[in-house]
């Protein structure tokens, strides 16, 4: 293990985070309008307004505010929501798990299925199976997510009533623990439609990536040699081909998780999924800056972290890197 390198990379990650946080701060502070507009009721007096400004630290100079903000970030404090009058981090903790469940669940399925079909499409390059499959993949990848989600809703929820149309669990369901929730059928029924929508969308990337990596690997000598040894088709396909082609896909996966968290906004809105994406949209609509800023920062932090992981994974998994020096 190269600790110095790890430390350097962590340093780089923190730097990136800091820059993003700074950009964010200035975006939110320098935009037009009164940041407290949504909050201040018509019945407020001038004094009350000023008191509020003080309360949120808005009476200080921009630089001071910035320093306080960064200082708070270090302490893990994201401020107070204007809207919910609660600390941003505790609000976020309510919804973050939901986003993560939905995302991970869809992700794992999408990647397993995607990789599988990527392998098959590469193996059967040039056949009808591939041509049709590829067109289908491109269609799913091109269709607007919200559109797909709404069509699925109309068909499977409203029309056939197979799946509930929104939320993470049935009305009034009570779970003693998160674990109980995660093991209940009800939860998966609720997750079905949003995750299908997400899977349909996510599927494309690992599939296409796997396919092209696989095509690359299939041209490699060791695959040809495996054929010459008279090994079976599936053995060659998976042990030789997929096993080697999957490495870049795994790195892509790490980055992809980060992206999906950020891109979940739409699915969460369509399916009333109480996640961080929807929280962000609501916060932006309500001009709840601290909340919007906090949600944004958490999403960004997650993405930056996943990029970092992807980088490390790449170093760990790529034989060329781990061979070091060798040609």
């Amino acid at each position, binding site marked *: 293990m190269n600790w110095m390198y790890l430390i350097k990379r962590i340093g780089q990650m923190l730097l990136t985070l800091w820059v993003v946080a700074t950009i964010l701060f200035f975006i939110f502070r320098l935009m037009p309008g009164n940041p407290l507009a949504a909050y201040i009721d018509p019945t407020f007096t001038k004094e009350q307004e000023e008191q509020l400004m003080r309360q949120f630290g808005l009476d200080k100079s921009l630089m001071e505010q910035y320093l306080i903000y960064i200082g708070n970030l270090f302490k893990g404090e994201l401020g107070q929501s204007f809207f919910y009058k609660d600390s941003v981090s505790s609000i976020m903790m309510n919804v973050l798990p939901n986003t993560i469940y939905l995302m991970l669940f869809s992700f794992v399925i999408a990647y397993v299925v995607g990789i599988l079909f990527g392998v098959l499409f590469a193996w059967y390059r040039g056949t009808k199976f591939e041509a049709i499959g590829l067109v289908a993949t491109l269609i799913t990848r091109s269709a607007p997510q919200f559109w797909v989600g709404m069509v699925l809703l109309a068909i499977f929820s409203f029309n056939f009533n197979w799946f509930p149309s929104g939320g993470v669990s049935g009305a009034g369901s009570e779970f003693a623990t998160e674990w109980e929730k995660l093991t209940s059928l009800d939860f998966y029924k609720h997750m079905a439609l949003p995750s299908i929508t997400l899977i349909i969308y996510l599927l494309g990337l690992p599939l296409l990536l796997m396919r092209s990596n696989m095509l690359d690997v299939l041209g490699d000598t060791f695959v040809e040699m495996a054929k010459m040894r008279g090994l079976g088709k599936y053995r060659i396909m998976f042990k030789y081909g997929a096993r080697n082609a999957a490495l870049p896909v795994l790195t892509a996966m790490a980055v992809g998780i980060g992206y999906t968290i950020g891109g979940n906004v739409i699915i969460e809105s369509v399916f009333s999924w109480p996640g961080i994406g929807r929280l962000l949209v609501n916060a932006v609509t309500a001009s709840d800056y601290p909340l919007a800023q906090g949600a944004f920062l958490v999403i960004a932090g997650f993405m930056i972290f996943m990029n970092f992981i992807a980088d490390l994974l790449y170093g760990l998994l790529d034989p060329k890197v*781990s061979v*070091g020096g060798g040609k």
Partner: protein
Amino acid sequence: MEQGNNDLIEVSDLKKWFYPKQSLIARKKNPLRAVDGVSFSIKKGSSIGIAGESGCGKTTTGKLLLKLHEATDGSFKFNGVELNEHLTREQMRDFRRKAQLMFQNPFEALNPRYTIYKSLEEPLIIHDLGTKEDRKSRIIEMLEQVHLKPVDSYLYKFPHQLSGGQLQRVVLARSLIVNPLFLVADEPVSMLDVSVRAGVLNLMREITEKMQLTTIYISHDLSLIKYLCDETVIMYLGSIVEKGPTDEILMRPKHPYTMALISAVPSTDPTIELKELNLKDSITSADNIPRGCKFQDRCPYAQEICLNLEPKLEYAGTNHTVACHFAEEIGGMKE
């Protein structure tokens, strides 16, 4: 301009270390000493060959001499001017005109989007040589020199429309079109088919002689070097282990590595049997160089001193130097 001696190139203790990219698994943290203290000089108009096993730093040396790499350390004088320091624009331009490189892979060396004409014209344009007409006539002249006739049928072709042998001729023409003094040819024929290889080699021999060019040939193939070069340098892991006139080196090698190298070259004569090599397997690489002689773990003659003291290049005859503590004994043994 005329210096006291008539060496065009003087290299002393030239080094190029590559620092590996960091990664989480720090398998190798040491710098890779691709060229590790190389000294030699080349007389004007003479040709010298650099041989050695793959990865010993031949190409890197060649690139250092063309300033395609910045040297880590050492000195490199061209025509008496020190080049291993920051050069002015003018100096650099001048050097670029006088020193040229011929690439190993002719299929790569020409911009696939340029016609042959354009590729050949480019150096002339860069160096502001001649009017358009001058340039054209110079191009035609060069193509004729490399025996690409009739010239017209080549001028406006694209690289992919030419065969490897033809391309390598174009590459040669391109490197010579600005009338350089110095040419580095890095494995100039290794990508070519045997049957056309000879043609290019002959051509190079003919032209460099005619133009009085100072040339460095880089190859792992000793038979080629023998065919082309007056002098030979044998490299091992970034250092020179032996150098001297080609015939001398091939006939009377003094370094155990050179010997192994020579006896490893297969002959086209089926009656000559393959000889056993006197060499051990190695674990040494350019980023993991031991104290003492770099060749110690492969050398069948290695002794205590070889593990501790790095041998210096020492004279072992006229113009013949070798870096081995036991050069005399081993060289003698052979005879």
